[in-house]
């Protein structure tokens, strides 16, 4: 079970909230302060990507973010609904708002930020899992 789970309607305004929650839980779980900017940026990228996918495919479905710590690592999973070609790993059409960055750019940024990244297709959509090492006494197994 995740330590904290957040679901939000796929609106860009809520991505900031997801970032704030993720960094608060990461800090509480024992992620080093020096990694906090990376956590914040990576979860923001994953949520932005999920919001874009939902906006195109399923605007009524919430984006889900699960935050947990286990085995000395802090893990964030961002799950979006929709098939892989439109919302997951396949080509993403250029957004109407004129974002010039190429498809997959957000995932490339996440890969550059997170200590460990796994992207997979689920039965209902795409999952982006990212994790960072815990430090201090909380890494030894104390619950967050």
């Amino acid at each position, binding site marked *: 079970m995740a330590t904290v789970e957040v679901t939000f309607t796929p609106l*860009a*305004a809520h*991505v*900031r909230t997801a*970032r704030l929650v993720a960094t608060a839980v990461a800090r509480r779980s024992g992620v080093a302060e020096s990694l906090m*900017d990376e956590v*914040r*940026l990576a979860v*923001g*990228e994953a949520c*932005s990507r999920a*919001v*874009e996918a939902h906006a195109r495919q399923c605007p009524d479905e919430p984006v889900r973010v699960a935050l947990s710590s286990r085995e000395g690592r802090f893990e964030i999973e961002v799950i979006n609904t929709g098939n892989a070609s439109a919302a997951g790993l396949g080509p993403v059409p250029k957004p109407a*708002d*004129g*974002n*010039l*960055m190429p498809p997959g*750019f*957000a995932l*490339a*940024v996440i890969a*550059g*930020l997170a200590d460990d990244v796994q992207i997979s297709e689920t039965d209902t959509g795409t999952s982006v899992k990212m994790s960072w090492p815990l430090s201090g006494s909380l890494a030894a197994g104390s619950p967050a």
Partner: protein
Amino acid sequence: MAQEESVDLKLDHHNKDGIEIVDVEGEIDVYTAPRLRELLIDLVNNGHYQLVVNMEKVEFLDSTGLGVLVGGLKRVRAHDGSLDLVCTQERILKIFRITGLTKVFGIHDTVDEAIAHRKSEK
């Protein structure tokens, strides 16, 4: 001088030595980036092709924000213009390094340095 405000992003701009300085404060993300995009487009449409974006007070920048800056650069270059950045914050510079955009933008420590660099290029 014009000013726009919202909860997460504050935009301001003024002219200095013939170069339009855009001061950005707050968070540039998927929610707020469209406002910066609109401002850059407005400036270009009003004939400002030499831009310096001062990011010293930016607390957060994601790939959507990077896209807006790249879009601004593309627009000014279409008029033989320039878009330089001012940023010394490691947390912001890191995303430019990860994405290789340090080779695309001129990134300076101060607005005066950016202006001096631009004048020397003319």
